[in-house]
């Protein structure tokens, strides 16, 4: 392994590559900006929501699960980074030192696995909230009637079943959507 300082020169072509790729990227953006026509209209400029008028802004709150995943990622990524120099130097060690290397990293990863099982137990890695609801309340209906494993649209309900609509809800098409939604949601409360 040439750990000499001449290695720093090996990065120069990489910088050239980054420069060339920057040029390619800018050429793409500028090229399409210059070549394409410019005929903006009000409808073209609205945010795309399947042809409907956009409702509200997209700068809204989003599930905290994404933050949780990012935090857990940092923990495990740092662990991976610790493993890299270990793995690179492991082979070259003598037998005695190798035992030390092995045991030392085993202890480190064992401690890490304690944390891993903790977050597993706290169900931090369960993306589906219904699983977490089961964990909170063991006698919840989800336990009594177990959720079928993979089906669409059953994230919050238990088993998939279609309830008959109550009598006071008007039939589909008889009234406007808003009235129907109002009737359906008033039933829920």
């Amino acid at each position, binding site marked *: 392994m040439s750990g000499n300082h001449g290695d720093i020169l090996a990065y120069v072509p990489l910088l050239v590559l980054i420069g060339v790729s920057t040029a390619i990227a800018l050429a793409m953006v500028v090229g*399409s900006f210059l070549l394409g026509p410019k005929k903006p209209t009000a409808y073209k400029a609205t945010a795309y929501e399947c042809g409907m008028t956009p409702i509200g802004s997209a700068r809204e709150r989003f599930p905290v699960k994404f933050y949780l995943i990012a935090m857990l990622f940092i923990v495990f990524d740092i662990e991976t980074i610790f493993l890299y120099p270990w793995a690179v130097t492991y082979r070259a060690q003598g037998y005695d030192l190798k035992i030390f290397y092995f045991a030392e990293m085993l202890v480190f990863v064992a401690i890490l696995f304690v944390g891993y099982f903790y977050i597993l137990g706290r169900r931090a890695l369960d993306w589906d909230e219904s699983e977490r609801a089961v964990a909170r309340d063991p006698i919840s209906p989800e336990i009594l009637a177990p959720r079928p494993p993979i089906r669409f649209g059953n994230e919050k309900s238990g088993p998939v079943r279609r309830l008959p609509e109550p009598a006071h809800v008007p039939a589909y098409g008889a009234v406007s959507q808003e009235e129907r939604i109002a009737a359906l949601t008033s039933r829920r409360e």
Partner: protein
Amino acid sequence: MIGQLAIAFPANLGPIYLPALVPYIALVIWLGFVLTILPGLIWIERVVIALMQDRSGPNRVGPRGLLQPTADVIKLFFKEDVLPENVDVRIYYIAPVIAVILAFAACGTLVLDAIPFVDAEGRQFTVPLTVGDVNIGLLYILAMASLQVYGIVLAGWASNNKYSLLGGLRASAQVISYELAMGLALLCAILMAGSLRLGDIVEAQATRLPFPGAPEFLRGSILAWFWLGTGLIPVVLYTIAMVAETNRAPFDLPEAESELIAGFHTEYSSMKFAMFFTSEYVAMLTVSGLNAAVFWGGWLPPLNVAPFTLIPGVLWFIIKVMMGIFLYTWLRATLPRLRYDALMALGWKRMLPLALVWLFVLAGANLALERRASSAPLPTPEAGAIVPRMRSTGGPASITGQPPASAEPGPQTPVPGSMEAPASNGAP
């Protein structure tokens, strides 16, 4: 030995030290290959999927539809560059630029081939045909690949569109989740090669015997490469993770058209839209190249015998990369998209612990085999235990003990320490 050292170039051509030019040659070859193959990749994907679905695929523009992607690119350049209202204009324009820069920069340390040189004293050495022959080559690719998520997240955020935002968030969570398993799967190969330099990892596979006592012609053959050498599990984990890392089917949740329209690039039009595709395809080439280099022997021929060794190494490398691309297409045509919670569970609950445990299985196996190989002469504890017995070449050897001939670095066997030969010689 690599087996295809039939000719060697002189190191010094007059005042020019040729190995110093190799990175730039690699840059031209690799960028030329990528920019030429990019429309081809889209064509390959469409044709292969059409064949798998028993339909024709593109067949109007040019012979067998070959010019269809080129026509698409030209069309996209001349499409209107729509700027939606309420977008964050600066970030909206920067995001595709980031995606493309990082995609092209990531492939910088892939090693295409090893070029044999002979210096003035008649010593042979090889120089890896790569843009950046740096000792953190693999880390560099991983870093660039994980930075690519910035392009996606920024695009999703700047678009001011709910689908885009959700797509960007999904992409970030997915990429960071699978990066862990990807890094750990690569660590298994690094453990056996003892280097992060991709050239060294390939050389380690070139000098390896598939199993102790194997016939000599199998040295460096397809059976000796790390896909089998690390016990199959790392290559499977890496292959799954590389598909997830590039947001391709069946892990294409960030752009799941049935729920998120087009995901993070819903609001992008004309060439900016195509830039995300460009970055995605270049990233596919890069991770396939990493797969080829780390697990599938890089530029090595599958067997060290005549018909295979006649094909230049760079072609072998490209063949292996294209097989990775074919695998991507095959997966896309075959597998349905995962649900998001299943995606997260696969990454965090299955692949991460399995990769971590397997790393220690490999390390333990290495330890056990070494003990059996060198059980008799125990070194004195004072002298031997403290100083790491780093071999001076740092060159690779098989996990099952060191190959008898090449462990001793000398001018006759330059391959394991070949990259150090010009350094010790004193480069001008």
